């Protein structure tokens, strides 16, 4: 099967007949009442997944979806309507539904002229898509993972592996006449193993991915590395003792533990929550919210990253936004609506799960910059504490700032040495306070392997996180060993 390289600018014209006049008429209809802004979001998504259990590739599925969302913004009001039929008639109906948000009186809008697509980043120009890789090859990869995991240790009793890949073609047209079009690939490989000994059963999992070609998973035996990680995590946990309970010094390993930043800081800095004054960070720009060792950025422009986009889902080019600079709160993450209402510039963080949703401010890749300390030095400095290297999910209460994230692989630190593994435990802290307790920052920034998905208001979007090794002097660890 060959896959042609798609020209996103032409795709919706060729496939659905969306010529300039159809676009201009729809936007014109959306703007019939007094509105500030309107846009159309076209999406065509082709996805395939396969998964292995019990050494068999049991499930294969493919999904084809397409649709168009029409949005009308008037002051702080948003009207949104979508249809999964991309036709001029259905778009007109959607535009009528969306514009109901605006006042009756005519806005006297000038006619919209659709221009040529603007410049965009080139963050994931793939020469081939994983959708074009024969299914049998993808199945073989999962079988190799299964065999490898089982060969690593006889205590491995179950192996589950999955590979999913998608290609989204999007086109955004707005009332300023701007057009943005893109092809957004995204792939992910996951391994979960269960290990059992006489005493119990434990789980380990690992994954990787990004806006990458299929060879990414193969080169340098990346899939094997992933498998070893999952197996080691499960085996480590077989020996784990109860996690401690109470406030203590915690050292977070590099990479995925950056989920701390996502929960503790990132969500609280999204523009919508701050415009409405419902975030614990509202009105605190310029204030100290972290130790001077901490600089935190959100960067949607990193090549091939899961959280990256050439432009956000409103057509604004993504950018690198400094959230915290040497401990001082510097910026919020903005979409167009909130930027306009807060009289600031959009940061390229307006994102949506699909055509079925209006965009809102979301993170892309959120991470802390490296500091000066060697990771060994950080662990060596702790006489009694917890060293957490892997996490499951996290969550935050935006309004009171309390956040949690759950360790899936952690160890005790005793007298400057990493000693026994402990069972998973949830860590809980206060967003505006936790980074003020960062006492050391490592020189080993890592980004996560490309597995993050962020949920907000019922919408999931792919994101990245990153962290160097850091030492936090006091966070509550929710174990059972009091």
């Amino acid at each position: 099967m060959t896959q042609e390289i798609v020209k996103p600018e032409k795709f919706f014209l060729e496939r659905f007949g969306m010529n300039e006049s159809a676009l201009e008429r729809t936007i014109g209809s959306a703007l019939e009442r007094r509105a500030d802004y309107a846009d159309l979001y076209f999406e065509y998504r082709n996805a395939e997944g396969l998964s292995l259990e019990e050494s068999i590739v049991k499930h294969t599925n493919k999904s084809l979806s397409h649709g168009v969302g029409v949005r009308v913004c008037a002051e702080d009001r948003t009207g949104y309507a979508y249809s999964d039929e991309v036709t001029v008639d259905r778009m007109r109906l959607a535009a009528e539904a969306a514009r109901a948000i605006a006042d009756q009186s005519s806005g006297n809008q000038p006619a919209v002229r659709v221009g040529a697509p603007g410049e965009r980043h080139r963050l994931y120009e793939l020469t081939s898509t994983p959708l074009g890789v024969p299914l049998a090859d993808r199945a073989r990869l999962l079988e190799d993972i299964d065999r490898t995991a089982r060969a690593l240790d006889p205590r491995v009793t179950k192996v589950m592996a999955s590979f999913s890949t998608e290609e989204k073609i999007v086109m955004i047209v707005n009332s300023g006449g701007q057009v943005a079009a893109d092809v957004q690939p995204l792939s992910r490989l996951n391994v979960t193993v269960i290990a059992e000994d006489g005493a119990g059963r434990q789980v380990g999992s690992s994954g990787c991915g990004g806006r990458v070609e299929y060879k990414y998973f193969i080169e340098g035996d990346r899939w094997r590395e992933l498998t070893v990680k999952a197996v080691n995590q499960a085996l480590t946990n077989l020996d784990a003792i109860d996690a401690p309970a109470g406030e203590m010094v915690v050292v977070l390993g590099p990479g995925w533990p950056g989920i701390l930043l996502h929960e503790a800081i990132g969500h609280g800095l999204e523009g919508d929550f701050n415009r409405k004054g419902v975030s614990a960070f509202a009105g605190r720009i310029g204030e100290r919210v972290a130790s001077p060792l901490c600089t935190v950025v959100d960067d949607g422009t990193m090549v091939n990253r899961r959280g990256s986009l050439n432009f956000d889902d409103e057509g604004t080019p993504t950018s690198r936004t400094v959230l915290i600079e040497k401990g001082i709160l510097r910026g919020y993450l903005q979409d167009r609506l909130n930027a306009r209402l807060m009289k600031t510039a959009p940061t390229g963080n307006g994102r949506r799960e699909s055509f079925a949703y209006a965009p809102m401010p979301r993170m892309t890749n959120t991470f802390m910059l490296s500091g000066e300390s060697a990771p060994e030095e950080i662990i060596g400095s702790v006489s009694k504490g917890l060293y957490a290297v892997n996490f499951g999910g996290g969550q935050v209460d935006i309004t009171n700032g309390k956040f949690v994230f759950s360790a899936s692989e952690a160890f005790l630190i005793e007298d400057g040495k990493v000693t026994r593994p402990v069972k998973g435990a949830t860590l809980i802290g206060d967003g505006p306070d936790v980074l003020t307790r960062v006492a050391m920052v490592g020189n080993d920034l890592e980004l996560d392997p490309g597995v993050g998905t962020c949920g907000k208001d019922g919408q999931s979007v792919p994101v990245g996180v990153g962290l160097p090794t850091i030492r936090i002097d006091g966070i509550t660890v929710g174990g059972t060993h009091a």
Partner: protein
Amino acid sequence: MAMLDPGLAQWALDEARRNGATAADIICVSAESLAAGVRLGEVEKLKSSRERRLGIRVFTGDSSANASTADMERDSLASFIAETVAMARLTAPDPFSGLPNPALQASHFPELNLEDTETGIIPADEALEIARKAEKAALAVDSRITNSEGAEFDSGRYEVLLANSNGFSGRYVATSYSLGVAPIASDGGAMQQGYWHTTNRQRVKLDDAESVGVIASKRALRRLGARKIKTTRCPIVFEPEVAAGLIRTLAGAASGPALYKGASFLVDRLETAVAAPSVTIIDDGTIVGGLGSKPFDGEGLAINRKALVENGVLKTYLLDSYSARKLKLQPTGNASRGVGDSPSVSSTNLYLVPGEHTSADIIRSVKHGLLVTELIGFGVNSVTGDYSRGAGGIWIEDGELTFPVQEITIAGNLKEMYSAIDMIGCELVWRSSTVSPMFRIAEMIIAGT
């Protein structure tokens, strides 16, 4: 709303056969909805949607593949189906796969009253008015209600059509209405949010909009001034909303796919004690108007009422045909089916049978302990049963509710927690498809300062 065409389903099944499939099933879902939100008295958003999707599962012998599409044109569907059959041929055979035993397929469908035929989708103006009324009542409760994340009224109607090549064909229409309010309280210190909602399949059965707003604000106000407490061991009382989460977790661990994968702490626990003797948990898909009710399950099998746990003993697993074959058991009518996926398992209407204690009795029974009102995070390991979640609530001292608590975790292991349920409340309110009365767990660990 455009009705789904049973003729299309039959045509698609025939098309699969023409391409060499030995068996197939089709699911079509058509949905429309309108959501209307207000914030601080002003209109904030309106969202209207319509979608239609078709999902197909095809078998070539013991191999299978799933696919879903929004493209209902017969020409493109024909090639889509051909590709799916080709995909199935590339999938390894699995002798446990296949359509359900035709003898178990539902032959008559109970009248469950899932559709509010009088009402349909609520128009935007009316929906906004309901949301506005609820938020206004919330803002009027107390001068410390200083802000709001708004109120939203949603109405939706969907139609499901399921058919397979063994002759099953079923269809139903359901509606749902919901109102949620999220006011914010502040007394100069940290802000706190409250949230409350009402959901029903019948518009007239929703709670009164103003009462929903008032409860939401009371829930925000009672969190003001919350503080951290010291690490301790004590009894934990779960409010109904958070109690239901623990009941849902038990059903998840008792579901077939988790069990045959060995990914559950309930592996090999059938007919053994998994909870205190006072615990009986019922799964009942036949409740008229129930939010988890449906006339047939995701594979077309009959829906039923059964005890998942009876007097503390695990009486059944929740199984679809595949996991039932794997575990050498019979399917239990708990298959769930997303349009794009092969069947999985879910509970229907699930509840912990009420006990004899009033809420006041339960609180009064606690000398030092915590009433948990909020839980956050995902710290539940269903393989091992290890449980550790972020919590907030109200401290109980000498049987009285005292001050609010936050930034702590509660932890234990599910295997012990269900067995340590020692008081169950007498009030059960159906607010979602899984509900529970208040209950008390004799002891858990609180991690704080």
